[in-house]
């Protein structure tokens, strides 16, 4: 992980030194001046890429945050605050953070669209506020001074370049961290993210706060660039067109932000030289964004895909590491790991679960079976905290879980998998495991992946086939070594041989990792092979429970499960 971030950062630094050297050293001043503007727009686009690209939210007030940063810089200049421009710019970025958090708050629980409305209305409000204020120092013709070292067009270009590279590197590290993985996970499926113990609120608010900080910095850089500013620099229209550009180019990629900056700055320049009206640019951005949304692929992603086609892909071997590298099992007290009593769940007038009792003993694998619609998945939802209400009690090792939201239950030690795959395809296999299990070492990651025949940690999830993704799901929850694992039909879609192998692995989980397992399955051979206790549900009621050899031969179980009467089986 770290190494990949370092490698990517090195690429950014080398590219910056080469390109920066060429631009600052060889190009005429006017072009250097324009290039500086490209970079500043690039910083603003990076900030937008974080919320729009990574977290998938529609943010339409990015230039307002930039405005806060710029105004702060102007104010600090007027107040003759110590520290100089670089420090003022950072303070300007910080000043935008509380606003970012405040505006992100209403969008915590509901997705993108509400955030779009909040941010657009904030941009309108901010427009009028800025319009009534003059830029600090404007009336006294007081310019924001540049640092002595970086005065002049070439100097300031280098100054901005340093900021751009620092931000690009920080984002690179962030995107590969657990926080970065949680952003992608939240974008893909909030429930799945919460099931890994990710707090949706923290993920969204951190994205918004960091994004506002970077946007504030872009505003501060603009203040030093132009010396004095007017409210039009930060108008709502700027925010809107910036959003269109971000969607079009994919601003969460380092190259996407630069391409976007180039388009925003160079397009009007070219149009001006061709004597064409400059506002045509926005029309093209709108078309480009619509096109990107309809294909689901931004310009950066298209470039990357074509690049991958040019460079022959190395065949990624399955991850391998000695089993001794597996993380040590967590020792747990004997007795019930999970005890559920009288669990009743109602959806309106439908009773999905009716007084269900079930105990999973520590160190064992228990089975939960029943025909489709019997309430098995509802049971898992209730235990994992995904239902707004239920009756009865759910205890984890004696501790009641009532009132705890899903992500806290996950942290407490209840982990689940899903029937449908919910892994964010942009993640790497290793990144997914890091999201699922905090603080896993590289060798442990490899060992767990190898143990379940999953691919190398550097493989992108998007290139992993559906069957293997289900194994990856299991690998994730196992890696977290929770008190209780709830596996929802892990063998669905696996071949017979794969199922046998998976069965062996599941049987080993309690010993190897110290987790008790509740297995929901339709494959009776698998259930017989690995479970020491089985509970059978039918229409939300427990109709039998006990050792599988005994329970599966009971008449009512056969009837419920196979839909046939005892007689016809005999016949």
């Amino acid at each position, binding site marked *: 992980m770290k190494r990949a971030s370092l490698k990517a950062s090195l690429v950014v630094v080398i590219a910056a030194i080469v390109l920066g050297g060429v631009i600052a050293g060889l190009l005429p001043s006017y072009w250097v001046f324009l290039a500086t503007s490209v970079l500043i727009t690039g910083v603003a686009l990076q900030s937008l890429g974080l919320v729009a690209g990574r977290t998938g939210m529609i943010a339409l007030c990015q230039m307002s945050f930039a405005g806060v940063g710029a105004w702060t810089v102007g104010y600090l200049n007027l107040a003759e605050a110590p520290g100089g421009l670089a420090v003022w710019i950072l303070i300007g970025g910080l000043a935008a953070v509380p606003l970012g958090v405040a505006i992100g708050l209403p969008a915590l629980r509901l997705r993108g669209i509400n955030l779009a409305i909040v941010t657009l*209305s904030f941009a309108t409000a901010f427009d009028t506020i800025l319009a009534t204020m003059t830029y600090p120092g404007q009336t006294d013709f007081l310019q924001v001074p540049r640092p002595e070292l970086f005065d002049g067009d070439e100097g300031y270009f280098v100054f901005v370049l340093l900021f751009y590279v620092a931000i690009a590197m920080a984002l690179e590290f962030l995107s590969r961290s657990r926080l970065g993985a949680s952003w992608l996970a939240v974008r893909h499926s909030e429930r799945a993210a919460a099931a890994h113990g990710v707090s949706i609120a923290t993920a969204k608010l951190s994205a918004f706060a960091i994004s506002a900080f970077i946007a504030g910095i872009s505003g501060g850089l603009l203040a030093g660039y132009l010396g004095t500013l007017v409210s039009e620099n930060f108008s709502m229209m700027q925010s809107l067109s910036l959003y*269109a550009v971000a969607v079009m180019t994919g601003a969460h990629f380092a190259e996407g932000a630069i391409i976007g900056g180039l388009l925003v700055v160079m397009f009007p320049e070219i149009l001006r030289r061709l004597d064409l009206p400059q506002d045509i640019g926005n029309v093209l951005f709108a078309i480009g964004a619509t096109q990107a949304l*309809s294909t689901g692929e931004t310009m950066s992603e298209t470039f990357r895909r074509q690049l991958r086609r040019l460079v022959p892909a190395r065949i990624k071997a399955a991850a391998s590491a000695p089993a001794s590298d597996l993380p040590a099992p967590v020792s747990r007290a004997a007795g019930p790991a999970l005890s559920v009593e009288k669990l009743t769940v109602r959806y309106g007038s439908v009773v999905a679960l009716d007084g269900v009792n079930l105990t999973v003993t520590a160190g064992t694998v228990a089975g939960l079976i029943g025909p489709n619609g019997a309430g098995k998945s509802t049971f898992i939802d209730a235990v994992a905290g995904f239902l707004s209400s239920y009756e009865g009690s759910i205890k984890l090792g004696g501790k009641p879980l009532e009132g705890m939201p899903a992500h806290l239950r996950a942290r407490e030690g209840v982990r689940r998998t899903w029937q449908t795959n919910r892994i964010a395809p942009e993640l790497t296999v290793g990144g997914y495991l890091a999201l699922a299990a905090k603080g896993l070492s590289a060798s442990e990651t490899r060992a767990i992946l190898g143990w379940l025949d999953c691919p190398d940690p550097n493989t992108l999830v998007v290139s992993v086939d559906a069957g293997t993704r289900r194994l990856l799901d299991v690998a994730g929850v196992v890696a977290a070594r929770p008190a209780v694992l709830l596996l929802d039909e892990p063998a669905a879609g696996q071949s017979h041989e794969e199922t046998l192998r998976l069965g062996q692995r599941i049987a080993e989980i309690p010993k190897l990792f110290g987790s008790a397992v509740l297995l929901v399955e339709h494959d009776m051979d698998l259930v017989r092979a690995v479970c020491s206790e089985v509970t059978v549900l039918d229409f939300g009621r427990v109709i039998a429970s006990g050792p599988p050899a005994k329970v599966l031969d009971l008449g009512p179980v056969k009837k419920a499960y196979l839909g046939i009467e005892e007689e016809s089986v005999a016949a």
Partner: protein
Amino acid sequence: MNALLTSAVAGLTAGGTYALLGVCAVFTYRLVAVVNFTGAAIGTAGTFVLIALYEAGFPIWPSVVAGIAAGTMVGVAIGTIMTRWFGEASASTKAAVTVALLVGIIAIGLRLTGGQHPHNMPELFPGSAFRMAGVEVTIASVLTIGLAALFTVLADLFLNTTKVGLNLRALADRPMAAELLGIRVQLLSLLVWGMTGAFTTFALMIIAPQRSPNFMTLSLLVVPALAAALVGLFRSFWRTLAGGIVLGLVEGMASSVDSISQYRSAIPFLVVLAVLLWSQREARWDEAR
């Protein structure tokens, strides 16, 4: 007191317009599942056709009809883009598309109408309708509110009692499934887009003389419209209607108080913030993900 009342009533025309635009937004959302950021821009396009024809010396009422027809056509054009390419897309993708389209429409609009250049917008319904507690209530305000109320009643009846309405509601959630049931999804969706286009155009024609009629300001009336729609939580037409009117009244009152009148366009933001924070108490997980 009377001054406050006068200015509140002065906000009624705006309130009616917000309400009508808001109800149209809810209508669009419930029937074709799009949170439409281009709503006001569609009406603005039609309004500027009226202005262009009027400035070119055409008589006013034929110009109004032509303008409404143009607004309807722009609505259908955007509807075509949305149904053809984004019929099965997620709600937030659709919203993002309308944001992108808004950027494009405003740019084209500003180009064609000469940017911030002031236009001569005829007042369609000048004069006062009646006096209430010593305050003149204008025909324009009665008209916009009446129109909004009419649209609300019709939309409510249409969706809850007619078979076509029920079909359309089914279509919003699962266009593909509705198509398989034999509902003419494309045609009905375009009908929705055309109809809301016509209504918003007319509403904007009435309010345009009160605002600085440039393409961007009018297009951005989508902000109070969406704020009103949020008051109705994008479900209830009646609450949206009330939300829009109250928004207009509050804006009107704010404009009479000197110290805050400059900031009155921040009011929709405060409303949005309050409604969202309040409505979040219950919502937990996004659409079954």
